[in-house]
Structure formats: C-alpha cells, structure tokens
C-alpha cells in the first residue's frame, strides 16, 4: 500500500469531527452516529490493509512511513507531522479502529435517551475526536506527535466523562481525570527534556532515529543501567502511570465511569488507558537499557494489579467493579512489559481490549435495560431476560479469569509464566540478584485468584439468582415515569447486541494470535511474537529456559486455583450465604473496610495534597504573601512617603506668600554672601 494513505487513517475520524460539528444539532442521533461509525470503519479498513501489507511483506518491509508536513523547526528541534506503521503500530491501529467502530455502532443504540437528543452530535464528535487523537498517539513517528495524541485523548476523556455536564459530580470527575493525567504529563515532559538534552548534538525526537542514535552511542544516556537512562525511563513511566491509571495516579479511572458506558468501554478500558503500555513497548530499546526502571514498572504493575483487585471484590456498582478490574488488568500488562515480556504484555492489551470492551458494553446493555440502574444488588437473574447480553458477558467473564482456551487465558498465562522465568538482572529494582520476578509472580498469582472471584461475583450477582430490581426507586436522575412496567428489563436492540456478539467471538478466539509453544500449533504458534520481533529484538530480553514441564505445572496450578475460586464464589454467593459470613469473620475488619473504602486513597490525597494546597494558597500565599507582605510593603512605602510629606507640608508649606518670600530672600542673601566670601 502507498504509505501516504496512512495519513487517511486518522484523517477519516477528523473529517467526521468536522462534519458532525458543522451539522451539530441538525444531525440526529442516527445521522451523527452513522457518520461517526462510518469514518472509524473506513479507518479500520485502512488499518487492516496496513496490517496485511506488513504481514504480506514477511519481514522484508520494516515499516511504512509518511510525512504530512513539517511542524516545528527551531534550534535542535525538528519535528514533522509524520506517521509510522511498524508491526506494533499496525496491530494497535487495528485494535483501536476495530473495537472503536464496534463501540461507535453500539453507541447509536445506547445514546437513545430522549433527554440527550440535542447532544448526541456532541457525543459522536468527541468520540471521533478521540479515535483521531488515539491514532495520532499510536501512529506518530516522534514524541511530539505522540504527545499531541496523548493529550488529545486526555481532552476527549475529559469531555466525555463530563458529557452530562449538568451533573456537578460528573464534571468534577472529568476535571479529576484531566488533572491527574497532567501530573503524569509533567513527569513525561521532564523525561522528554532530559532525553532530548542528554543526546547533545544527536538530539532527536523521532523514534527510529532515537533507536539508531542509542544503538550507536549508548554512552550518551549513561550506557546500560546508567543513572541518566534510569531517570529518563522512570520519568517517562511516570507519564504512563497517569494515562494508564497505575499507582499512584490510578484514582481518576474509577471516577471516570461517570461518562456514558460506551465511553468507558472505548476509552477507559480498551484503548486510551493502554497507551502507557504502548509507549513503553514503543520505547522498549530505551527501557531495556534501564533494568532498575524496568523493575519499577513491573513492581508498580504488580502492586496496582493486586490493590485494584482487592477493591474490586467489594464494589457493588457494576461499572466500578469493571473499572477496578481494568486498573488491575493494566497492572498485569505493566508487569508483563516490566519483566521484559513486551509481546506478552502487548498481547494482553489486545485480548483485554476485546473482553473488557465486551464486559463494559454488556454492562452498558444491562444498565440501559435497567434504566440507568448500576447497582448490582438491584440486579440478578438477568440471563433469562437478556439472553444474548448474558451469554456474551459469560464468555467475557471466562476470558478475563483465564478459563483455558479463551483469549485471556493465553495472554495472562504468558505474562505470569514469563514473569516467573524472567532474568532478575533485567528487573533489577533492588539489585540484579534479588529474585524480584518470583515475588512479582506471587502477587500476580494471588491477583488471578481475586480476579476470578470478583468477576464471578459480578456475573453471578447480575445474571443468576433472583431478579432483585424494582424494589428501589432508581433512574431518578433521569426522571423516568414511575411506571414499574417500564422497568422490566428486556433484551437490547440488534445494533447494540451485534457488537457484543462480534466481541464475544474475538474474546474466544483472540488467543489464536499468539498460541503458546506447548500446543505445537505449527505456523500459528507465537504468530504475534514473530510478527513483532523486528520491533522488540533489540531489547535482548532474557528468560530462563526452564524445562517445559515447569511451565505447564505452574499453568495447571493457576487453572486449578481459578476453578476452585469460581466454585467457592458460587457456593458463597449463590448457594450458601452462611459461608460468606463465616469467611468474613476470618478477614480482618480493617481489610474489609479498606476494600470497601478503596483503601482511603482519595481521602489521603484530599487530606495530604489538595487541602493543604488550597488552604495554603488562600491563607498563606494570597492573604499573607500577596496582600500582607508585598502589598503591605508597597502600600507601606506609599503611606510612609505621604505621611512624611504631610508633616513636611504642615511645617514648611504654610501657604503664606511672605514666608516663601522670606525664604527666597534669605537664600539669595546667603548666595550673595557666599560669592562675596568665595571671591
């Protein structure tokens, strides 16, 4: 394919933005939605064409590249608006546009609330703008274009979380997301500055040139394991923690669920939040030089995965569970790339995009059917009422908990196994000999159990047992009529369940992309791994070539424990609630309260950072420094001067002509006297 066509991939969604924004209220939900969907679908076609071009080249074509125009050119900064598609980009493009177009299609059905009739055009404008920005992020051939996308997706996230802006809480959630991301961007920018200046005369912001420069002159950044490269990577990773909701900046993502559910699926599950992982994959050659930073990435990832999972087990809002689940799964991905298993981490990005988008869209269908009810305690037994939604959700559930054969099983298993087998020297947060990978595997393993539990809980509470709806007044903020009959949930329209089915198929068969070697699947074995090899080969990651049986045993152990957890969850939640109470006795109260209250992280930030900043600014900086000290000094000087002149004026400037004349005469006499004496 002609590389110039690459520009059209983000070009179509941008065209959609312009067209829909120009039509604005004249575009109905269906018109705006169709335009938006068509644009993303066109991008998807081009993306797949790109992918097949690269696949068909069998490694002879490293990447497609096109320059749109020269953007900034000053001093040592020379940046083009240019797009690049190597295997990594191509796969990500397909995921974003593919899943993106499904979610666009779904949104046409979802956004049918008459209260929103006048603003659906806005929704689709933002959604297309998001796809455009996301494509800039992944296709940009340099840091700055990537950063345009990086901030652009943040903007769309902000706008879409606050889509129902009349609700102050929603508007606040949007702001919180943007500001938290900005904290990450602060770190990202500093990393960028540090990288730029450390390269000296070789300074470049383009990824491929950077790779060449670092290959030829690793000493510029301090060489392998150097302090400089570690600092750069840590700062860049700081940016990733913001965008991909990791410790310590994960707090915005759960609040981001204020946005319409398709938004949660597209932005806050499948695509945007994975951009941190994408960034690290893109810069694998840089991160590979900094084992300490890699260790930090893996450790933060594992800890986030665990922490988020402990919160997810006790949430009752279906979207909140999924939000924390997303944070947790993102942690897995960071764990994967952190230990050097870039392909595995990225593989999980893909499969997660399928099943998490499916879970969110399914949850959206449930919420839609339940008239904006999100509390799982008011659901139950929905499988009978919503067959397609229910069964597709069950598939997604099996995929995320790693049920053998489903897509999530292959990706998660690979991450866990490669974590176990990773060379401690490349994950050297606490030194090259500390067996950090084994420890991280332990955390990942426990998290897998928690994942199985909370996801089973979600599915059981929603689709099985008795329907518990209709007991409480709900959907109040949308002012439904009080007719109980209207609340009876029923299956959603085909435009909504269609995408669910497609995603369900992908969730089942996604694993085919990268089948493990022990399946002996011939050409299909590790397809993704081979395809991405040109991107990751220079990172030279090492894994313990342990005997195959150890890998299989660890996998068997994981599967066994997961099965047991599902069984236990079924017993606890559906069959015998007594067990639940008994188990709760064993868990410390502190842990239960912590889980329910999200470990008080928001409160901690509020108390330790936000309050002191606001109070300090108001009471100290503004009231004391500005008004008292500086203005006090200014006004004080003025008062002093005017007081002095008043005193002077009252004594000397008496206003009598003759006094002045006397002074004049005396002065003249003095001068005459001085001249007389002087000469």
């Amino acid at each position, binding site marked *: 394919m002609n590389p110039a066509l690459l520009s059209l991939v983000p070009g179509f969604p941008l065209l959609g933005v312009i067209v829909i924004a120009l039509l604005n209220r004249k575009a109905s939900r269906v018109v705006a939605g169709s335009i938006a969907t068509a644009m993303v679908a066109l991008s998807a076609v081009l993306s797949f064409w790109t992918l097949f071009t690269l696949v068909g080249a069998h490694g002879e074509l490293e990447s497609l590249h096109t320059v749109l125009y020269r953007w900034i050119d000053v001093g040592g900064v020379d940046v083009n608006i240019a797009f690049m598609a190597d295997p990594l980009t191509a796969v990500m493009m397909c995921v974003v546009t593919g899943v993106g177009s499904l979610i666009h299609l779904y949104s046409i059905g979802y956004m049918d609330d008459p209260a929103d009739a006048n603003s659906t055009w806005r929704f689709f404008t933002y959604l297309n703008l998001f796809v455009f920005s996301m494509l800039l992020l992944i296709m940009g051939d340099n840091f700055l274009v990537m950063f345009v996308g990086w901030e652009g997706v943040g903007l769309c996230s902000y706008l879409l979380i606050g889509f129902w802006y009349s*609700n102050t809480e929603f508007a606040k959630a949007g702001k919180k997301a943007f500001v938290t991301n900005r904290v990450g961007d602060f770190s990202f*920018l500093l990393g960028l500055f540090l990288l730029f200046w450390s390269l000296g005369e070789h300074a470049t912001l383009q990824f491929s040139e950077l790779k060449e420069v670092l290959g030829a002159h690793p000493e510029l950044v301090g060489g392998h394991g150097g302090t400089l490269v570690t600092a750069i990577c840590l700062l860049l990773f700081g940016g990733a923690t913001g965008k991909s909701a990791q410790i310590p900046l994960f707090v915005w993502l759960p609040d981001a669920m204020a946005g319409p559910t398709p938004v949660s699926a597209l932005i806050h599950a499948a695509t945007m939040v994975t951009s941190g992982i994408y960034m690290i994959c893109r810069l694998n050659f840089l991160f590979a030089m900094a084992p300490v930073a890699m260790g930090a990435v893996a450790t933060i990832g594992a800890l986030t995965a665990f922490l988020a999972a402990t919160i997810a087990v006790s949430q009752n809002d279906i979207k909140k569970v999924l939000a924390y689940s997303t944070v947790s799964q993102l942690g897995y991905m960071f764990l994967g790339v952190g230990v050097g298993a870039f392909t595995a981490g990225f593989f999980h990005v893909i499969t997660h995009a399928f099943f998490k988008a499916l879970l969110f869209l399914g949850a959206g269908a449930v919420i839609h059917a339940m008239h904006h009810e999100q509390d799982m305690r008011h659901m139950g037994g929905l499988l009978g009422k919503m067959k397609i939604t229910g069964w597709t959700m069950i598939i997604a559930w099996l995929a995320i908990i790693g049920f053998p054969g489903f897509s999530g099983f292959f990706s998660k298993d690979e991450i866990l196994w490669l974590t176990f087998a990773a060379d401690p020297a490349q994950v050297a947060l606490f030194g090259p000999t500390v067996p950090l990978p084994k420890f991280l595997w332990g955390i990942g393993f426990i998290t897998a159990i928690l994942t199985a539990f909370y996801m089973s809980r979600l599915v059981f509470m929603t689709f099985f047992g008795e329907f518990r709806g209709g007991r409480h007044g709900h959907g109040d903020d949308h002012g439904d009529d009080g007719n109980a009959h209207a609340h009876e949930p029923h299956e959603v329209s085909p435009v909504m369940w269609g995408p669910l089915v497609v995603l369900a198929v992908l969730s089942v068969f996604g694993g085919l992309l990268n089948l493990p070697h022990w399946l002996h699947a011939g050409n299909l074995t590790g397809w993704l791994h081979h395809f991405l090899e040109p991107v990751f080969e220079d990172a030279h990651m090492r894994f313990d070539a342990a005997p195959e049986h150890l890998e299989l045993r660890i996998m068997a152990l994981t599967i066994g424990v997961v099965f047991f957890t599902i069984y236990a969850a079924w017993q606890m939640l559906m069959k015998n609630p007594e067990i639940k109470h008994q188990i709760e006795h064993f868990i410390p109260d502190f842990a239960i309260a912590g889980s329910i209250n999200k470990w008080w992280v928001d409160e901690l930030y509020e108390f330790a950072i936000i309050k002191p900043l606001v109070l*300090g600014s108001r009471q100290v900086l503004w009231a004391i420094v500005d008004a008292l000290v500086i203005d006090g000094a200014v006004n004080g000087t003025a008062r002093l001067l005017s007081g002095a002149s008043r005193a002077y004026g009252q004594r000397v400037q008496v206003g009598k002509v003759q006094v002045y004349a006397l002074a004049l005469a005396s002065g003249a006499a003095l001068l005459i006297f001085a001249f007389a004496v002087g000469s």
Partner: protein
Amino acid sequence: MDHLLSIITFLPLVGALAVFASPGATARWLALGVSGLTFLLSVPLWFLYDPAGTGLEGWHTMQLVEGPYPWIADLGISYMVGIDGIALLLVLLTTLLTPIVIYSSFSSVHEKVSQYMGFMLVLETGMLGAFVALDTFLFYVFWELMLIPMYFIIGIWGGPNRIYAAVKFFIYTVVGSLLMLVAILALYFFHHAQQGFWSASILDLYHVVLPYRTEFWLFIAFALAFAIKVPMFPVHTWLPDAHVQAPTGGSVILAGVLLKLGTFGFLRYAMPLFPQATHELGPVIAGLAAIGIVYGALVAMVQDDIKKLVAYSSVSHMGVVMLGLFSFNTEGVSGSVYQMLNHGLSTGALFLLVGIIYERRHTRLIAEYGGLATAVPKFSVVMLIVTFSSIGLPGLNGFIGEALSLLGSFHAHPVATVVGTSGVIFGAVYMLWMVQRVIFGPLTNQANKELTDLTGREILYLAPILALIFVMGLAPRPFLQVMEPSVDRVLQQVNREVDLLAVTESAAHSGDAVRGAHGGER
C-alpha cells in the same frame, strides 16, 4: 512606502486627535477605522520583512530602518525606527488586538466614548513606538507615553476601586522606568567615553563594554523596570488590581501587549546590553520565574473573581516566558517569544469573554455562575477552546510556546524548570476548576437562564483570535522562521565571549573618561 513603520506608528496618534474631537457615535467607528487601517498597513510588514536578512551585515540587523534623523542632534539623540523578527510579530499582535478591543468596547463603554477611543489609539502609538524604536531615548519616550492613556483608561472607565488601581499601576511602573532612565543615561555617557561620539542608538550602545560592577547595577536597573512590567514575582501586585479595575478593553491591551513590553525589553535591551550580568543573574531570574509560575497558579486557583483569576494566571504564564528567555538557547528563547504571542491571544480572549458575561450579568464572581454550557453554548465552546489554549493543549498554540520554553530552559536551569513545569499541572487545576464552576454544573441561577448567547459582533471579533489559536498550534513554522534568525542574533550578543582583559582595561579608561564627560557637561 519608505516610511511604513512610522506611518503605522503615528497613524493612531493622528487618528486619536480626530477621535477626541468627534462625538461618541462617530468616534467609535472612526477609532475602529483608524485602528483597522493601521492593521491593514501593518500586514505588508510580514511580506516586506526578510527573515534571512539577505544582504545585511553584522550580527544585529534591523530591517525597514528609518533614520537616524537627528532629533536632538547635539546630544546624538535621533529618531530611528526598525524591526527585527521579534518586533515584527509583536507589532502585528498589537495592530491586531487594538481594533478587536475597540470593536469589543462598542457595547461596554457608554460614557466619554470619544475620550476612551482616543486614549486607546494613543496607547496603540505608544506600544508600537516602543516596539519599533531603535533609539533608547525614543524608546523611553514611547515607554512613558503608554503609561498615560492606560492610567486614564483604568482611572476613568474602571471599576469601583479604580483610582487606587490606576495610581498603583502608575507608580509601580514609573519607579521602574525612572531607574531605567538613569541606566540609559549612564550607558549613553559610557558610550561617549569609549567611542568618542554621542549616540543613543541601541545599535551603537550594543558596542559598549562595561566593567563588571557597573554592568551588574545597570542590568539591575533595566531588569527591575522590565520585571515590573512583565510582571515577575514579587513585583506583580499591581497587576491583579489593575486588571480587575480596568474596563475590558484595558485588561485585554494590558495583558495582550503591555506585559509583552517587559519581556521584549529584556530581550532587546537588558540581556544583550549586559551579557555578563545576564548570565550571572540568570539563575536568580529563572528561580523567580519558576516561583512566579507556581505562585501565580496557586493564587489564581483560590480566586473568587474570574478576572482576578485570569490576572494571576498571567503572572504564571509570563513566568514561563521569562524562564524561556533566560535559557540562552534558541529553543527556549524562540519558545518564549512564541509564548508572548500565545499569551497575548489566549489571555486577551479570556478577558474578552469575561467582559462579555460581565456586560450581561454585571458580576465577575465565579459563584454567581454555573451551567452556562446549557444557557449559552456558543460562549461555552469558545471559552473551552481558549481555556485549553491557555493550558497548553498540544495542537493549539499554547503548547508550542510552553513546550519549547521549558525544553530550552531545562538545559540552562534544570531545577527551576522542574518547578516551573509543574505549572502544567496547576494551570490545568485552576482553569478547569473555574470552567467546571462557571460552565458546567446545573443551571440554577435564574439570571443565568436568561443570558443571551454570543452576538454576531462578538463572534466577529473573537473569530480572528480563535483562528490564530488553531493556526499557530498546527502550523507554527512560519512564525518560528520569522523570529529564529533574530533570536539567534540576540543570543549571539548575549552569549558573546567577553574578553575579560579588555574589560578590566577599559574599566580604568572609561572610569576616567566618564568623569571627564561629566566635567564637560558642567
């Protein structure tokens, strides 16, 4: 058009005479016509100016130079104007913003209309003159000329506390500019002592080599004058008062152009004239700039008055400009000049928007608003775009300037830049918090429900700014290319290797010579 620059500079002043003499309704259109014509005349400058400076010699080449025409011939003071790429852009910013401000004032100024419009035009001449002047005395005259109309604009058409604000603005600025005058005179005598002839031309004064101590103090004098104008922390407190009390038009011009004269002064005068002191004090100024960024943002965050919030945000944004200026490298200084333009556009637009709702509701308190997105969607869209431009969203203009300034200064002052870069966080905090409280949320206040959306006239004068916000974000190259050679030449002067031996020798020599010169004067 041999005298294009002079025509552009003085056309508003001539127009002002006619405007003062005509009745209000005529004065409006006349003032708009004059300032519009000035803008149209200034557009050809863009094409006449040759960024590469082909065929021009020397490190500092001004173009479209007129003069020197003897003004006070005996003292070597002459009328001489000319522009480099930096001044060109700022001249265009001025000629663009003035008609916008005049047009926007049609609905906000109803008393003493002809005087208001006249003062605006006088102000325009003052600003343009300060940008194009190549003679230090001429520069000083224009510098002071700006002060008078601004003083009246705040003092006559301002808010309830206008007299205090006007006097504070005036005295703050005058204190700085008097020190600058003293420094100009000293420089002038040093030049005579070293070169043997009297000249106040900046191009001649660049050749003066000063002993270090002297340079240090002269730099302080210039820097203080400009720092007050910028304004830098801690001499910024005139700004919030002046902004809050000034009428909308005054605020826009104040933020849009007047503040730029401070940073422009650093770039044209303080830095290249005193390179050693500039480098010596660079870390201090960068430190103050970084403090200003965070301080301005934090104080902006807790304001209840939208205008005051925007005023403090200026302190923060201009800190970025200062940080970029003192990076001493092309990236940083170009970014800084770019950021001057950005700040002029985005903060100017913010003040216009605040003025628009103030006209309708007669309050600027954030708490009085909320849910405007529902009531006035067009206004809200514009407000959001301008907000994100101000925050520095990539793709809009603010990003280019901010990122380049910070990138540049990271090289020279890493610690200050780390502090300053945190402004990207705080900037988002105060702007988005304000947006959340003003634009989003439920529409509860009855008075807000009856607001009318942007009128055609308002859209008309906001449109050029909005267009530039996008153009300058997506295609910054033309602007950067115009300024880059000039920036490089200034940097050459700022970073020149100073031969220390020559300095010590000339110290002894010029010390005597200066005494001699003073003796001669007497």
